């Protein structure tokens, strides 16, 4: 094995993937969110920078790069500055196992890990640690409260998410993401039909995992300022945003991979199909954001522990029953 060449290849891929996330997920994602929000609320959204406001987030990024880094004197500086790195990197790591499509016989995936789905769940759980660290290190009441809320919410929804992943893994007989796409064939072979309850559970849990409306209590701006982000200025705030959007797009991509047949589709190239499906899921998430009001904390925890988790476990049993008999 020529490991030196492999390392260079890996570095190149990582740089490409990170840039892809920064541009497509974070910058374009924020613009898309504002445009869709504008459209839903019958207003225009960003309009002035570039054609139809296309360069708005680019301009925002340039602005943020010129903002001063303020570390509060009361904060724990080392952890305060490391937390955004953890969140951004965790957002990147999710994408290691996402298959984008095929070129000939080659599957466009960074690495098709044997434990793909489990790896994704593990990396998603690392975000919790980053948020908790950032919120605590800020030494701000809003931040810490937001971080604790966020952590309790994310751990609560990790379990229903895992049950949905397991139901799909049962049907496909593998944990590898490429293998799961391979197990789905045609339009009606997609797991969204055969595993519809798992799909519903996955979508709700994924929305909660990425702290989006209606599960955005950690950042409830009307009560907690900006939650765990309160003390973060400039680029460090942007890194948190990058991590969050990367994670949200990763959840959409995973939903595409697990339930919507991944890159499969007629006529158009596989990569295009993958992106179309992913953006449909992303649009769905944004649509939810501009439609639903926020949950209360006890409602949110009840939904996870008393409804989604038992339902997920029962669905695993039902899937097992139908596959065995």
């Amino acid at each position: 094995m020529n490991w030196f060449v492999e390392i260079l290849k890996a570095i190149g891929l990582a740089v490409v993937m990170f840039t892809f996330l920064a541009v497509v997920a974070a910058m374009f994602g924020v613009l898309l969110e504002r445009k869709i929000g504008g459209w839903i609320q019958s207003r225009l959204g960003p309009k002035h920078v570039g054609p139809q406001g296309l360069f708005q987030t680019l301009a925002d990024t340039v602005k943020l790069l010129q903002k001063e880094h303020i570390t509060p004197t009361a904060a724990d500086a080392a952890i305060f500055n490391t937390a955004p790195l953890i969140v951004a990197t965790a957002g990147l790591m999710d994408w290691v196992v996402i298959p984008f499509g095929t070129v000939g016989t080659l599957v466009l995936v960074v690495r098709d890990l044997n434990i793909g789905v489990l790896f994704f769940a593990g990396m998603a759980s690392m975000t919790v640690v980053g948020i908790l660290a950032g919120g605590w290190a800020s030494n701000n009441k809003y931040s810490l409260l937001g971080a604790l809320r966020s952590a309790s919410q994310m751990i609560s929804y990790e379990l229903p998410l895992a049950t949905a992943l397991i139901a799909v893994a049962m049907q496909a007989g593998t944990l590898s993401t490429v293998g799961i796409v391979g197990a789905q064939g045609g339009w009606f072979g997609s797991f969204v039909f055969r595993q519809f309850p798992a799909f519903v559970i996955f979508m709700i849990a994924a929305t909660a995992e990425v702290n989006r409306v209606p599960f955005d209590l950690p950042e409830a701006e009307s009560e907690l300022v900006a939650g765990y982000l309160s003390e973060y200025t400039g680029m460090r705030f942007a890194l948190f945003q990058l991590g969050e959007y990367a994670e949200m797009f990763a959840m959409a991509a995973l939903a595409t991979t697990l339930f919507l047949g991944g890159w499969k589709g007629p006529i158009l190239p596989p990569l295009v199909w993958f992106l179309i499906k992913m953006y449909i899921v992303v649009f769905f998430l944004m649509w939810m954001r501009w439609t639903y009001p926020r949950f209360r904390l006890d409602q949110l925890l009840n939904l996870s522990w008393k409804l989604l988790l038992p339902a997920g476990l029962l669905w695993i049993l039902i899937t097992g029953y139908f596959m065995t008999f």
Partner: protein
Amino acid sequence: MGQLASFIVLSIVTLTAAVVVVTSGNIVRSALSLIPTFLGVTGFYILLQAEFVAGIQVLIYAGAITVLILFVIMLTEGGTGLRFRQVNEQVPLGLLAAAVLAAILIVVFVSTPWPKTAGELPQYTAAPIGNMFLTSMVLVFESTSLVLLVSLIGAIIIARRER
């Protein structure tokens, strides 16, 4: 070659973080330093080709246990900003004990005749583990769920008494 390099890098990461855990004056820093330690250990599992165990290590230890530890720290009275000492007056005695333990371990490691030939590696570690659960280890597997049930009940009882 590559494996040796990875081993050294992982050792450095794991041990540095572990030293911070036991020396830091702030308890939250100690708890957060556990994460690089756990991730370093994950790397060792991967070097031993135990992928599934590595996944568990990230999900359970780095992702769940650490969060639990942080929650526990944050409910302690007096808050988390306090500085505290991790050592007492018995430093020389402790060093002596550690040195003796290290010496014994090194002697044992060096004198043990380790099998030099590599065994057969399973192609995919999750599947053999699942097979084992469902065939030869059925009783262990089922009693695990009982152990977990008991720990859950115990945890709830203790936590409720505290409240």
